[in-house]
């Protein structure tokens, strides 16, 4: 047991717990009994709060442990996280402000609310909502993987169910203050999380390389390690087979990120269009940190860091690489701060994700199908309860199911959420697609994507299915026809799945238009997509 680390960690954890409960009174609206308040913090966050909140939301603890772990294990392919988070903002800059405006005029809380308003179809909205919930659940579970990695590094590495007890306690506390304070809790805690993360990464990136002979030495050590392994896909540079995979994974991930309901929650909670635009300029500061952090995976190679064996599963857990590197090379009080940064870094996104999933459940399932006449207060109550269910579901996932399963599901989740692109993102610009086309495209993209993922095996780690998202192009076939022959070039699965989705959506749309099938009623007006905070047309916040 590492007492100094544990004490520093616990003190910082206690601080954010107090903040989480106090947050209910921070920038308080008239009532917390409305989803605008509980689920979106009153829709009034300014540039700074939004920067910390969205940054705290997108750059999760799991990212902070998994990306360096990937670099440690496979090399350059893990660096896709940098291009991913650089191209992200130019891509979403224009669509996001449209989404904000139309949501502000009509009081939409979730992406599925928008789809329902745009197409007048609660079935299509249900499809989007379920996709969002299913894709978000394993993501929450993965935050626990990040949190558990630091707990185990601090010596809380028990076996069996008892080994998960510290994680369970941390999550009960998180669940309680999220229940009470809603989105204001992660918004306030994000300040602590992000400041700690910046502090730790800056110190690590300045101090550690000098300790191991500078960057030149570190990269040479990494190359030497990868040269010694039998695997051909690793190395400090990409090879001829995985370059397309690298680029398409970065692009696909960037397209998918703001389709996740929790990312949109942070955007809809902001005050106005300029807040969002300024953030699109300022958020890449986190990308820089993420890129530097990724390189710590190589530093760990030079430092000879060994992943610790997870007592609960009996296997070495590469996600403990960064915590172990910090633990071995920093004085224990600073290692405690670093662990707290990662641990608190898990709480912020986990809270926002559970709120987003709860909003989806409440608005697009509960109010639509179970209790149509629910008052705003009943909606808020339902969402609070749903957030508890979601969080305990995630804990159960980690405790009772192999964490590897969550990682597989997260991989699948990215491909799944990408299938909502036509209905959510393209619909922001045009209503050309027919509602039947969107549904058919979703079914096709989802089915094809799952089938492709299922067939990806990796004999090296003994997995026959769901062993990654890199698909050899030679495996792509259209009813037995292999358009790319036996090519070993790999591509991100999300791309062919989205292509199938769009193709089917276009064909069915053309048929439906030819047959003049009714295409639902559009509740939105073209001018809704440009409304700003000063307009008289914005819907009053928390109006009944």
């Amino acid at each position, binding site marked *: 047991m590492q007492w100094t680390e544990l004490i520093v960690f616990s003190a910082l954890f206690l601080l954010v717990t107090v903040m989480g409960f106090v947050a209910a009174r921070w920038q308080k609206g008239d009532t917390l009994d409305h989803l605008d308040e509980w689920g979106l913090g009153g829709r009034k966050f300014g540039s700074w709060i939004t920067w910390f909140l969205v940054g705290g939301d997108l750059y999760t603890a799991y990212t902070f442990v998994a990306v360096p772990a990937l670099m440690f294990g496979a090399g350059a392919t893990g660096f896709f996280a940098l291009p991913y988070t650089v*191209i992200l903002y130019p891509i979403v800059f224009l669509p996001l402000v449209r989404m904000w405006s139309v949501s502000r005029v009509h009081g939409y809380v979730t992406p599925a609310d928008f789809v329902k308003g745009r197409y007048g179809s609660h079935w299509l909205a249900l499809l989007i909502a379920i996709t969002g919930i299913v894709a978000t659940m394993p993501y929450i579970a993965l935050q626990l993987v990040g949190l558990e990695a630091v707990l185990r590094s601090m010596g809380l590495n028990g076996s069996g169910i008892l080994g998960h007890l510290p994680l369970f306690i941390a999550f009960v506390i998180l669940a309680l203050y999220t229940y009470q304070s809603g989105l204001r809790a992660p918004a306030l805690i994000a300040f602590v999380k992000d400041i700690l993360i910046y502090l730790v990464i800056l110190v690590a990136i300045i101090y550690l390389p000098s300790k191991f002979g500078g960057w030149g030495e570190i990269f040479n050590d990494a190359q030497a390690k990868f040269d010694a392994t039998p695997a051909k896909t690793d190395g400090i540079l990409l090879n001829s087979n995985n370059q397309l995979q690298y680029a398409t994974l970065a692009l696909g991930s960037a397209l998918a990120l703001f389709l996740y309901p929790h990312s949109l929650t942070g955007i809809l909670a902001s005050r106005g269009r300029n807040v969002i635009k300024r953030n699109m300029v300022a958020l*890449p500061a986190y990308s820089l940190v993420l*890129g530097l952090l990724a390189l710590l995976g190589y530093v760990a190679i030079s430092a000879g860091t060994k992943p610790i064996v997870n007592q609960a599963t009996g296997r070495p857990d590469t996600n403990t690489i960064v915590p172990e590197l910090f633990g071995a090379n920093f004085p224990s009080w600073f290692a405690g701060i670093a662990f707290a940064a990662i641990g608190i870094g898990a709480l912020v996104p986990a809270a926002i994700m559970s709120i987003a999933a709860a909003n989806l459940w409440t608005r697009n399932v509960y109010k639509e199908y179970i209790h149509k006449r629910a008052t705003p207060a009943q909606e808020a109550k339902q969402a609070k309860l749903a957030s508890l269910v979601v969080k305990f579901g995630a804990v159960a996932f980690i405790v009772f199911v192999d964490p590897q399963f969550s990682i597989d599901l997260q991989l699948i989740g990215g491909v799944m959420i990408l299938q909502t692109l036509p209905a959510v993102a393209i619909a922001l610009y045009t209503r050309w697609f027919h509602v039947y086309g969107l549904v058919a495209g979703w079914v096709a993209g989802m089915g094809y994507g799952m089938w492709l993922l299922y067939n990806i095996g990796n004999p090296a780690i003994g997995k026959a299915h769901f062993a990654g998202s890199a698909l050899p192009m030679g495996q792509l076939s259209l009813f037995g026809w292999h358009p790319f022959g036996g090519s070993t070039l790999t591509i991100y699965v999300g791309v062919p799945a989205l292509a199938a989705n769009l193709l089917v959506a276009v064909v069915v749309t053309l048929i439906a238009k030819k047959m003049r099938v009714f295409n639902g009623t559009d509740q939105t007006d*073209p001018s809704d997509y*440009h409304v700003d905070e000063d307009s008289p047309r914005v819907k009053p916040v928390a109006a009944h």
Partner: protein
Amino acid sequence: MPSDPKTGLRWSNWNLLLIVPLLMLITPWFNFDQPRLFGMPFFYWYQFAFVPLGVLCVAVVYIKTKDAPAVTGKPDKLGVDDLDEGAK
């Protein structure tokens, strides 16, 4: 600042700058070890250089389109409607 324009789509040529950062997806342009900078292979520092480049592109688009005249019901003399698929 006037709001509530009538058009469905607004376009500024400055928006084209948003495509520039996507050039970093062309891996054959930078998948090299040499030249190194501070010991870092070209592959890594080239991509790091895209962080400020991306920020610059988005910032220019933000600043240049911030005060774009909003359409307030009168015909738009700038010809924006020509580009406007969404207008009725």
